[in-house]
């Protein structure tokens, strides 16, 4: 559940940003009369992209019609209405414990056989889908995921600025690592700095001893810290998520060659020719509802490379002299003929 800063900045996200995105969406709706976008705290990306709304708890459905301002049907109680209105841009907030029933009632109230597209229809919670069908028996429901992901794939300038800010927060947080600190002190320092800088959410993971295990885990208790360890911080800032990974060698071994190799490999994206030569790699980005989905990587069976202009997060494990170095950073995919680039 979210517990970082959730606040709307009309400087970073003026109304026109959301209005422009909505107009693009409406223009792409084709024969559809309405579009439904579900959100909860693990699948907030589609709705936050259109409204800024981020559910710290519970669930909601955004209803986008051709000719009316968007409605947000939320399961949160009425007491939270002022908070929603303060932190997002929605014309009307409707509170109902069963968001599927209320959404179907609203949409079918205008015309019973309305053509309704649902983003990520297959992934919608079954209870919500059942409620939509029960309360809107004549609604024509179809999947509209492709329509949305096509629009969403390339980051617009506002998203790039938020990604840059999230990247800066993550980088600043990782600077708080004291190589000689305890594992608890390291995790606490990274998380505190990210939250203090305004992160909406922070996840810190560590590979405490790369000589034993190179997998990044959430820390509970106080496992032993090895000579070389890695820290990953995943940071959300106003709906934009990034990951950064650093490796620390407590004996001071230089890791610069790995960092250079990583940047060179990222620059080739969406071509993964160089990245795929590393011990492992992963490229994640936002397609629809989940902020960071696996797009390409060592373990990704069906890759879908990011388009030019997409903001992604890249992680890699690079072996230098037989020793693993874990690195990660957000990146912007270059247009045709341009190199991709790591966010500072």
């Amino acid at each position, binding site marked *: *559940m*979210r*517990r*970082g*800063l*959730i*606040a709307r900045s009309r400087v970073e996200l003026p109304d026109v940003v959301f209005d422009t995105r909505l107009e693009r969406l409406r223009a792409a709706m084709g024969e559809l009369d309405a579009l439904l976008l579900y959100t*909860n*705290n*693990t*699948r907030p990306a589609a709705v936050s992209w259109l409204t800024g709304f981020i559910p*710290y*708890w*519970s669930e909601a459905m955004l209803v986008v019609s051709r000719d009316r301002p968007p409605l947000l049907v939320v399961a949160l109680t*009425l*007491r*939270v209405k*002022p908070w929603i209105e*303060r932190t997002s841009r929605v014309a009307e907030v409707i509170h109902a414990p069963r968001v599927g029933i209320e959404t179907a009632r609203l949409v079918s109230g205008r015309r019973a056989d309305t053509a309704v597209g649902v983003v990520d*229809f*297959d*992934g*919608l*919670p*079954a*209870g*919500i*889908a*059942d409620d939509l069908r029960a309360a809107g028996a004549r609604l024509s429901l179809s999947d509209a995921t492709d329509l949305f992901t096509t629009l969403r794939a390339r980051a617009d300038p506002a998203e790039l600025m938020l990604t840059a800010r999230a990247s800066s927060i993550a980088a600043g947080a990782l600077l708080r690592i004291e190589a000689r600190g305890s594992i*608890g*002190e390291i*995790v*606490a*320092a990274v*998380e*505190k700095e990210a*939250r203090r800088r305004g992160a909406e959410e*922070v*996840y*810190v*993971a560590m590979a405490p001893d790369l000589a034993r*295990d190179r*997998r*990044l*885990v*959430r*820390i*509970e*208790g106080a496992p032993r810290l090895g000579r070389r360890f890695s820290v*990953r911080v995943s940071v959300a800032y106003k709906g934009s998520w990034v*990951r950064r990974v650093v490796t620390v060698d407590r004996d001071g071994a230089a890791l610069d060659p790995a960092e250079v190799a990583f940047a060179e490999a990222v620059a080739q994206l969406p071509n993964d020719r160089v990245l795929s030569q590393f011990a492992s790699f*992963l490229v994640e980005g936002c397609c629809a509802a*989940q902020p*960071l*989905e*696996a797009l390409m990587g060592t*373990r*990704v*069976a069906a890759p879908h490379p990011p388009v030019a202009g997409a903001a992604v997060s890249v*992680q890699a494990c690079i072996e230098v002299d037989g020793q693993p170095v874990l690195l990660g950073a957000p990146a912007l995919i270059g247009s045709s003929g341009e190199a991709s680039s790591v966010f500072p």
Partner: protein
Amino acid sequence: MGSANSFPLAVVRRHRLLAAMEAAGIDEIVVYGNAWQGDYLRYVTDFGILEGHGIAVISADGATELFLDSATDAERAEAEAPGIMVRLAGDIARAVGARLDRVANHRLAAAPRRFLPAWLADAARSFTIADGTALLDRLLMHKLPAEIDAIRRAARLADDAYGEFIRAIAPGRRQYEIVADLEAYLRQRGCPDNFMIIGSGGRDVFGMTPPSERRIAAGDLVTTELTPAVEGYYVQICRTLVVGAATAAQAGAFAIYREALEAGITAVKPGATAADVAHAENDVFRKFGLGDYVTSKYTRVRGHGIGLFCDSKPHILEDVDTVLEPGMTLIVHPNTYHPEVGYLVLGDAVVVTDTGVEVLCTTPRELFEVPA
């Protein structure tokens, strides 16, 4: 086989699950989880999901496959939940569907079924998945001694964390800076997770939310519920403090909440219902002419279950007839708006015992004061 106490908690839970499946005639159970509703999945896999969807398929022989669509969480699960077969799948519904196609003639159940991806629950599939939510709910509500032990440890952490919260409050500080301090305090203590919301101000404040940029000011009532987790088990504590000296109105209002909390805790005993506890709390407010403020317009619940989710069943409401039994863990919190002073909270975690109730938190039930 040794006593239950000699096995890791996850193994004991697994034995309990398999016994319940056998009793219900279930061959495979499909369990869904995400970071919001992660308790069912945590119970059966011991994995605390953070990103994306997770679906576990557990066979009657205990074999467990965990499907995840987040690559980072899949890597974490392999390290954090040994003994589980982890499968990374971009289209998790179809990956689980392909697994279930192989056992389409088996008796399948899901929990919580209403959260399953719609494609998986669709009638067009080769298999039919019954609703097994009630089976898991029983296991989640009735805690084993080892589960209660984890909750006790979380309660000690919650008490300590509230002390840190008091130290973090000062005029001029922003809400999110205070939360940053608290989260860091818990991480330093090896606690990986916490849920907390916060409120500050006066009569203009009707509840708690994630932190904002609002600065703490003299005279503010500052409310929070802290919910740290140990081994996945959450405990909650709710307290209110005043920046400066409490006014007579604030102190008087708080006394009502303390009386309501005490009445609610007194009502917790085996055989009582969740409704009995809610009535006991609410009757105190009614006695003081504040009956309107125990309705859904001003308050969501008068407490709730705690365990692998920070807001689990049963909800403490006047229309919930769940019978309380030994081993259940709850928070009783008569949190609501007071028309003279604003939103106030006060709540303690408890465990239902064979003879009554044991309070897990030790923080005094005071309206704390910090320097203005």
